[in-house]
């Protein structure tokens, strides 16, 4: 068997688990083998990896941590299916597997000097968190940062414990909304697109980055366009239930494109040129 088998996961151990939101947990993984640590030494914001719950299977997740904040890998996992329920049943100390890092990433170098607008919907905020962290940790490299953070209800908002850090950063605004208010909610109520129209960030020297359900991405792009954002000022990351992550299994195709290899990060103009849409 060749040593380089991209389907073989690196072994890891759960070193932290915490509840992020209703049904969503954050898993912190320490890689056990030097090969695994080397592979993940310099992964980029927007890349993804497969996480194995041995005995149940593996599934792809956007990596929600950044290497410059430490070697522990973080994944936000919503319990929705077989593998994700199995992951939710694990405890600190339990073994997991990690395969990656895979896919392309947000072009953080190209975004230097730009005003950045982040639009995260529900767990779609998870792959955007490394973008936020990268900007906050090299704050002088980027312009104004506007974060629009949304969820269907207040209990589904992720990374709320980081809101203070985000809000208090230099030239950074955080706006939060929920589709439906819950008990004690005093903030915005409404879709992220309504909040976007209200906040109305200037397209001047700006790039908007969004992730959420497909329907949200679609309407966020439309609203950004109304605000004057050009196709080359809008980025997103798509998801699919991939099984290989290396362009072989076919599961993530959109026309002749593969989300795993050609993406998961795409400019709006790339998506607009796709033969087959993601919606």
């Amino acid at each position: 068997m060749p040593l380089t088998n991209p389907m073989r996961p690196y072994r890891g151990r759960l070193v932290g688990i915490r509840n992020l939101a209703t049904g969503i947990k954050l898993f912190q993984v320490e890689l056990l083998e030097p090969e695994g640590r080397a592979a993940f030494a310099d992964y980029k914001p927007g890349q993804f990896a497969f996480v194995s719950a041995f005995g149940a299977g593996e599934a792809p997740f956007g990596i929600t941590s950044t290497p410059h904040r430490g070697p522990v890998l973080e994944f936000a996992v919503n319990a929705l299916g077989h593998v994700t329920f199995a992951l939710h049943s694990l405890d600190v100390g339990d073994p997991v597997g990690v395969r990656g890092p895979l896919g392309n990433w947000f072009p953080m170098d190209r975004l230097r000097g730009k005003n950045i607008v982040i639009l995260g919907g529900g767990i779609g905020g998870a792959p955007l968190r490394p973008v936020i962290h990268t900007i906050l940790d090299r704050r002088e490299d980027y312009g104004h940062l506007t974060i629009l953070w949304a969820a269907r209800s207040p209990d589904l908002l992720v990374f709320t414990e980081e809101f203070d850090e985000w809000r208090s950063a230099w030239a950074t605004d955080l706006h939060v909304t929920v589709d439906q208010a819950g008990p004690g909610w005093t903030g915005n109520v409404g879709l992220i697109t309504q909040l976007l129209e209200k906040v109305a960030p200037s397209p001047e020297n700006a790039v908007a980055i969004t992730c959420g359900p497909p329907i949200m991405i679609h309407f966020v792009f439309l609203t950004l366009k109304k605000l004057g954002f050009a196709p080359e000022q809008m980025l997103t990351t798509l998801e699919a239930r991939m099984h290989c992550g290396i362009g072989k299994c076919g599961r993530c195709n959109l026309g002749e494109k593969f989300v795993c290899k050609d993406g998961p990060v795409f400019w709006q103009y790339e998506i607009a040129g796709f033969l087959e849409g993601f919606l």
Partner: protein
Amino acid sequence: MRYATREGLLAWLDRLAQEADLIAPRDVDGHVLYRPVHSGAEVLLEYERPELPAKEFLFPATEVILRIEQRGKDVTLEEVLPDRRQVIFGLRPCDAHGLAAIDALFLNQDPPDAYYRHHRERTTLVGMACTRMWDGCFCTSMGGGPADPTHLDVLVRPAEGGLYILQPVTPKGVAVLESLPLAEVRGEPRPIPVEEYNPPVPVTPTEKWRTLFEEQRLWMRHGERCLSCRICTYVCPTCRCYDVVDRVVDVRPGRVLTERIRVWDACTSPNYRRVAGGHNPRPTNWERLRNRFMCKFCYYPEDFGPLGCVGCGRCIVACPVEIDITEVMEDVAGA
């Protein structure tokens, strides 16, 4: 050229069955299938197109890609693959052509598929020319032919006088023929000619397929009656989509043994493209069937080189609602 008698060929197969895993066309309850055989006597020498391609011997329908042993918090991962040499005898040229199409993705696109490459390296392909074209066959339109040696290691052709002509194509083919008892022949026995060719089917450039993507009526005409039964992808020598799942095989106190298996998948399956949360960009039968045809004639050749169809005709025969890939090709050509 090398010649062999029927007896010589069967004796050689007996020997190959000892030295290697021998796969050959066999009669299985009235069905012709490529199957493991243990002697030449089991092997069919006159047979029609086997009902399934031979891809399962290089890309198994279910393959253990990892053995996972958990002892408490410790995990060991092991890849287990057969080391024995494998010979596929009696492979029809279209099925070898199908493997060449899979090679374009699994071998030639980086990174190569470790499992497929392993099987490909341990396997020798000994083909058998067809002496006619079968129901639904259109290999001659897809760059192949009933006696096309291109993607084989050896081509065997039935010849006059009950003889067989063995043509080595690759060094692997020369090597496998070393143990073949050769027949003494006078002159040059000619191969039995192909008795009947099927009419050609038009192959349209990928650019035109691209322009017809939004022609909903065309796709619905063929795809609306699709049952999503997935038999077309199952019998296809080039379909290669897969799923990966874990299967717990043994549980004992303090120890769990799991097999991670890869299984064939089909883009015609309703859940194939569904994402977490339930959204499905291809919610209807006709959209999924459009993807299958677009993959074969547009996406696959654009991404990886070869067309994703070799004209074996199996999907035409297997489809329970008579969806005919050649009718789609005709419609696209005429659109």
